[in-house]
Structures are given as structure tokens and as C-alpha cells.
């Protein structure tokens, strides 16, 4: 095991066209199965799901890489609705 990864710094290298208004992914913040929440927080490559000390689930859609992994894992559970951001918005890979 190595140093703890800092995903935010990595996302900082990417180009995003931010959708200031709406999240393209709808998360069920009331979802209470801790084991499932743990899986989603660990599977997201961008580390956008987190749980605070009060066990409240947070999701930040702004650094989303639009991979769909959380949808595959937890649609109908933590993930209520999953769509791509509207055209032009979201991640823009310069290299890919």
C-alpha cells in the first residue's frame, strides 16, 4: 500500500465544461445500506462519492468522468438516475 491517492489533484489536470445548474446523476441521499454506499464510494474513479462523520452521503457531479461505473454497480440503489450531461458540457478529454 502506498500513499493515499489525491484524486482531486488529478481531476484538476482535466478540462471540464461545468454544468453550473444541474447534476446529470441523481443520487438517493436517503439510501441507508452502508455496505452498498461503501462500494460506490470506492468504485468511482473520480472519488466523487463520500460519506462524512455523520454518515451523510455526498456526491459531487462536477468532476465526473462519465464512465458509468456507479450506474452499473448501483443503479436503483444509491444511483437513482444516470444520464450524460447535456451536449457540450462535462468532461472534455484533450488527449483521451
Amino acid at each position, binding site marked *: 500500500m502506498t500513499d493515499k491517492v489525491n484524486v482531486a489533484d488529478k481531476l484538476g489536470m482535466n478540462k471540464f465544461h461545468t454544468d453550473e445548474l444541474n447534476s446529470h446523476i441523481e443520487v438517493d441521499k436517503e439510501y441507508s445500506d452502508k455496505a452498498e454506499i461503501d462500494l460506490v464510494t*470506492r468504485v468511482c474513479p473520480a472519488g466523487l462519492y463520500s460519506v462524512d462523520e455523520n454518515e451523510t452521503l455526498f456526491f459531487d457531479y462536477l468532476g465526473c468522468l462519465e464512465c458509468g461505473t456507479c450506474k452499473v454497480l448501483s443503479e436503483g440503489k444509491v444511483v437513482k438516475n444516470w444520464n450524460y450531461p*447535456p451536449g457540450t458540457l462535462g468532461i472534455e478529454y484533450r488527449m*483521451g
Partner: protein
Amino acid sequence: MSEEKFDCIIVGGGLSGLTAAYLLAEKGLETLLIEKGNYSGAKNMTGGRLYGHSLEKIIPAFAQAAPVERRIVKERLSYQDSGKMTTVEYDSRGVAAPEGESYSVLRGKFDKWLADQAEEKGAMLVCGVRVDDLIVRDGKVCGVIAGDEEMEADVVILADGANSLLGQKLGFKHKISTNQVMVGVKELLELDKDVINQRFGIESGEGVAWMFSGCSDVYDGFLYTNSDSVSVGVTMMVENIKKTDNSVPQMLEDFKNNTDIAPLIEGSRLIEYSAHLIPEGGPEMIPKLYGDGVLITGDAAALCANLGFTIRGMDLSIESGRLAAEAVLAAKEKEEFSTNALSYYQTSLENNFVMSCVKGSEVCLAAVKSGDLKGDPLKVFNNLIKETLIG
């Protein structure tokens, strides 16, 4: 735009969509391709390496004009086990045949180039538009809906990628399960050309494709050399998140810090961090491929193959785009776009390397799952070389 009816509308400007657009426009069909990113490639990523043969058939010697990074001349396959590593190298510098070549590519650049070629052939490309739904009348797909705009066509090709929300909406594609897809995460690391050449023992323009197995029970690693960067990443079957306490971003960090990997990327600088799904479900995952007025291609059709330790998707995508275009052209001849008329697409895929590749991946996956490949490095490499390099 809504006044006009196109011969074909293609959803998604990745490799299969662009290939179909290129070939249809070349034959004079009114072809519209709609991409949600601001350009083709904006939403795409690969490990990655493109096997050139399928594009070679369409654009001979494409690699001389296209922005490929390096021609792969060395395949390295490493098996790691508790700090020990065995590596097999296959050097193909003595072999020269364009149809047998593969290249490291970056999709942001490569797809943009292919999009330019399709536009030159007369395809109409609209970027920055997300297709939300399909127009379906009496079971026939008649066009697409984007926001409050509707556009009609004789045929719609769904080339909308691994998630294919449209394929799912149409009911052609089942919900993807966690043991059918891998998540791939990658860092693109800038590194001086000469340093790359020196570290990997290659000349300018030559590249290495390197797969690492055994570094973990839940993920595998990869490294590809680009012109002046290296792509380093890990792939994990989504189901495997249940077998570990680690996080996916941390897996990539651990892999990079692995004693065998760290020296290869020392002094590099992160320029992009990306992630994508890789369909790995074999033939079972392939959706209904055609219907009345509609075809599905590429990752959307799960036409991807994990042949032991090399993952092929892009060459299969291009081939499926070509076969979809052929089916549309044949349908156009008869002005008949029914399910029956388009069934030629399925037949031609079945008789093509695409399906044998996807079926081959099933054999390899079964071997991996049963443990046949994991335990015995010699067996790993023998199978691997037979399956992936010799065929």
C-alpha cells in the same frame, strides 16, 4: 434541420460511428453524425493500442497521415507475484506488414482526425448535441430526438458507447451487470521522447505495449508508450470491488508505485486522468444488433474482446462500423429498411473476425475465472502468446 430526412443518422462520433459515416457519405448517402462532446474524441479514452488492420482496409496506409503515437514493436507481458516478476517479450521489428501493425493512440487526437476524414467524404457532423431519445413509430425507429429537436432518417445507427443508454431505452440492450464490464482508469504521463526511447529500448516512432498481471487479485495493469507520454492504468471487473477494501483511484496509485513500474515513469508529469467502461461480457452481453430502421455498433454492441491479457475493442468497433455501413448500403439499394433487410449486419458480423474474437474472449475469461491462467506463469504465457499474438 427537422424538415429534412436523412438516409442515415449515426449517434456517437467514436470509431464505429465515424467509420460508418465515412463509408456511407463516400457512397453519396445523406449522413448525419451527432456527437455529444464538443468534438469527436472529447468523451473517449483508450488504454490504448489500435490494431490497424480494420482501418487499413478502409484507409490504406492511414498511419502515415493519422495522428498515431508510436508503432508497437514490443509486446511485454509480465506476471507479478509478491514482489517477483517474470516478463515475456515479443519483438516484432523484423516483421513488416501494415495490416499486422498496431499503434498506440490517444482518442482526443485520433477520433478528431477520423472525423475530419468523414467530413471530407461528405458526412455532416454535429457536435455538442446529446441525443435524448429515438423516434419510434409502430416499432420502427424513424429518427432521433435531441432536446426539442427531432431529426428523421431511414436508418439510425446507435454508436453511443459502452453505456448505450439509447440501446437500453430501445429494449435491445439489457442492463449491464457488474461481471460484464471492467472499469479502466488511466493517467497520461508526459515524459521526454528520448527518455522513453532509452527506458524501453526503442527508437523514435517505435512503441511498447505492456500488460501486467498478478499485481493484485482484483485488477491488472497496463502501460503504453506514446510519442512523448506514457499511458499507465489499471482495469478491474466492476464486480471485484466487492472483493477488496481498496478504492479504484487508489489501485492506480498503488500500481504506479509498484517497484517494477515506478522507475519506468520516474520524472513524468500528469497531464490527464481518465476513466471508461470496457465491455467484457463475451457473446452473452451482445444486445439485439438490428431492428426495424436501427443497427447497434462498437462498444454499444459490446463488441470488445479480452483475449487473455490484451484487450481489443477499437479494431472491432471499426469493423462493426464498416459492416453496419454495408448493411445500410444494401438496404438503400432496395429502399427497404425493415428488420429483415438489415439482418445482413448480423450475418456479416457472425462470418467475420469480430464474432470469433468476442467468442475467443469467452474462452479466455473462463480460463481466468477457473484459475487456469492465474496460477501457472508458464501456462499463462503459452496461452497468451498462442491466443493473442499468434492467433
